[in-house]
């Protein structure tokens, strides 16, 4: 007699299996329940509307912001600042990180220094930045740059260092020069990790954007949030925060999409 087949382990077994359908069902519940809870609390009358606006009022405030208060412009200028600061930091951090991860003398010269500077809080540089750069666009870009650059250098260096030694040595025993190893092995091998580093630092850039706009700006999503506080427009504060979250989520997903398209070899399995 054949042994009876064992029952499929339950979803609560450690690292247990779960069907796609069930996964997305639970994911939807995880998203909907907090919104429902928010709605319930806001409408219950336990909390003042000033402190806790209803989802409905946040929605209508967003619509109003869009139609009358130029939401698009606020979002646009914020996206511009984030992108400029982040791009500036990427353009400089990539080559420096590559050199740190490739050549020991550069590592010795720059890594301890970078390690030290990155522990200095970027926010504390704001007074200095305002003094040096002024209060126009340059200062926001500078704050985002300070917040992301040093971390990015160290992450890029680490990405390059993670290239397996055997990949480098195989190229060496095929006669590759130093330049060829950088171009044909180190860069293509670390590229997927570098894109991930760019994606993660983009998230940090948004954090520093809001800091920069809260302190010294007269436009942008962060500034709109600050202004809303002055007028006790809690619903607009909510709208601003949710908008920033959504923009971040979209950018993150775009990076992931790019990752899948650009590095098919990482996402294929036989």
């Amino acid at each position, binding site marked *: 007699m054949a042994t009876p087949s064992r029952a499929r382990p339950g979803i609560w077994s450690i690292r247990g299996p779960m069907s796609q359908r069930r996964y997305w069902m639970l994911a939807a519940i995880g998203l909907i329940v907090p919104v429902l809870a928010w709605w319930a609390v806001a409408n219950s009358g336990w909390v003042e509307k000033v402190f806790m606006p209803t989802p409905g009022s946040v929605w209508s405030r967003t619509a109003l912001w869009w139609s009358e208060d130029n939401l698009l412009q606020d979002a646009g200028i914020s996206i511009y600042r984030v992108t400029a600061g982040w791009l500036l930091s990427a353009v400089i951090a990539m080559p420096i990180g590559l050199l740190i991860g490739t050549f020991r003398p550069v590592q010795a010269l720059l890594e301890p220094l970078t390690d030290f500077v990155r522990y200095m809080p970027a926010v504390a540089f704001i007074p200095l930045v305002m003094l040096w750069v002024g209060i126009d666009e340059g200062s926001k870009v500078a704050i985002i740059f300070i917040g992301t650059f040093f971390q990015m250098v160290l992450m890029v260096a680490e990405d390059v260092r993670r290239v*397996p030694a*055997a*990949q480098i*040595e*195989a*190229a*060496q*025993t*095929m*006669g*590759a*020069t130093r330049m*060829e190893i950088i171009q*044909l*092995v180190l860069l*293509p*091998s670390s*590229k997927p990790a570098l894109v991930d580093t760019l994606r993660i630092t983009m998230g940090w850039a948004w954090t520093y954007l809001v800091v920069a706009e809260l302190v010294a700006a007269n436009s942008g999503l962060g500034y709109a949030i600050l202004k809303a506080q002055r007028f006790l427009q809690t619903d607009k504060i909510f709208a601003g925060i949710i908008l920033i979250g959504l923009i971040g989520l979209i950018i993150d997903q775009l990076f992931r999409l790019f990752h899948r398209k650009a*590095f*098919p*070899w*990482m996402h*294929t*399995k*036989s």
Partner: protein
Amino acid sequence: MDAHKVVTIAPRIRVRGLGKVFGEKPQQVEALKDIDLEVCDNEFVTLVGASGCGKSTLLRIIGGLEYQTSGEILSSSKPVAGPGADRAMVFQHYSLYPWLDVMENIRFSRRLRANRHDITSADVEMASGRAEALLNLMGLSNMAHAYPNQLSGGMQQRVAIARALMGRPEILLMDEPFGALDAQTREVMHDLILHVFKLEKATIVFVTHDVEEAIYLGQRVVLLAPRPGRIDTIYKVPLPAQRHQDMKHAREFLDLKKEILQRIRETSGMKTDSELLEQLSRTAGNQ
């Protein structure tokens, strides 16, 4: 002093009085000491020994990936001063380029400046013909456009071997290339590498910790002893050039295997298993 040797041409690789010390002054470790070794053209030499005997270090110094602290290495009579296309290396794993497909991996050396001196289109055509031939030789012709992570461990090592052969190296250095494969795949790879050895008239230095593998593949088995790493014995394998899996059960094969294993135990400074077990059971009995 070499006059008594019947060597008509200079050996492919000559290692003379080679020593390697790791680390800086207070905590130095002597990894290799007074290594003398010659590898002739079209010879298959295997290096075995207990872990820490420096067999991989020796191979890496020959490949130019490490430097010696004393002595010299001549490759085709020229001193070795770093890695070069004349000494291709095959590693245990993680050496393939996962962003390139099988064919692109095999043709990698063609992208290097050192190999871009082809003048005529006939040269280029010959090279692409060689890539195809190596692909077929390795039994990968239907895998040309697969990525390495779509291949089994055995197939990945075939690609690595084909890639190393692509540049027509004078010597192939193999650092435990089958160490991560299962026993069945390893047997298949053994016969494949012997076939390649014959077909390509290759010269191979092969590091392994598997004595059976060392005897089956090698014409000579070099046994290294640890602390400091040195050549203990060089065995000539008493098997015909054309190897066959059945030979692994032949008396000569088994005797040599036993002898080498025994010697590894002696040189590694560890007590034999039975002694160790006896001692353990005695201490257990005393409690």
